[in-house]
């Protein structure tokens, strides 16, 4: 199940957040992208676990997604973190991306950690965890 497509689509299609960030990328911040002016978002699919019953399998999964927010300004990091939580927490619905339907059953905000200042890259970092349940 493409949890990454669903989360990417949700964030990119929110005009408020899309205008407040440089971009959203998988796994790490690409070398040619800077987080010095606007925050950069990175998503990582940490784990995926199936939810099965006697007559239902391979059609409903839960995944833990980590969203990392990097920016030189801690204030901008926190503003984006709050906006993401408002957007994603308790979200449920069907997303259509290039004619494919992604049925998001529920997104739950799990945790937020302020990881402080990274002196090597001159950015603050905030990590948020979301538990996403999706149908096939």
């Amino acid at each position, binding site marked *: 199940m493409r949890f990454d497509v669903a989360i990417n689509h949700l964030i990119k299609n929110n005009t408020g957040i899309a205008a407040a960030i440089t971009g959203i990328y998988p*796994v*790490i911040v690409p070398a040619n992208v800077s*987080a010095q002016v606007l925050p950069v978002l990175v998503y990582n699919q*940490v784990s995926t676990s199936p939810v099965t019953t006697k007559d239902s399998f391979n059609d409903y999964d839960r995944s833990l997604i980590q969203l*990392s927010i990097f920016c030189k300004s801690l204030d901008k990091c926190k503003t984006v973190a709050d906006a993401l939580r408002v957007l994603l927490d308790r979200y449920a619905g069907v997303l259509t991306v290039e004619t494919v339907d992604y049925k998001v059953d529920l997104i739950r905000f799990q945790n937020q950690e302020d*990881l402080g200042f990274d002196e090597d890259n001159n*950015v603050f970092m905030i*990590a948020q965890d979301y538990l996403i349940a999706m149908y096939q």
Partner: protein
Amino acid sequence: MTLSTQEQIDVIVKKFETLKFVFGDDNFEKVLAEAAEPAQSAMRDAAPKSGYSHVMKDGGGSSKRVKSGNLKRSIQVFKSKKAKKFVSALVGPVTSKNSKITSLVGGPKVSRAKRAFYWRFNYYGAYNAAPNRFIDSARSASGNAVLSKLKSGARKYLDKEIAKIF
């Protein structure tokens, strides 16, 4: 309904709390320390190792060179110095030479010589590094072993205490 391993551990710890008057604090800590050993070894196995030595900050503007595997070696079993009423065994990296932690009775002695403040950059990732949730994988790998050690420890020390009564 089947309880998850974590829920079963919670139930056993609650039972321990009710039986503390039979156990005594020392035996209670011994059981927790023994049960924490599989979690410690699982976390040490799961923790990443860079393969080369590196320089890290050591407080007060100084820095020191540490060998590869420093994060693994920093993972220990300890309790919080503040935990007086409710003792719990914690497993994880020691982060600072000023950490307010102490050893559990009957458990391995806590050392602050190997410290890894940077565990969170491994765990949550960084600007140019993906997260490695080694603590989560260690927890799921060692849950059953911790549970069985808690149960066997309870039986071992309860039998001793009951034998003392009669």
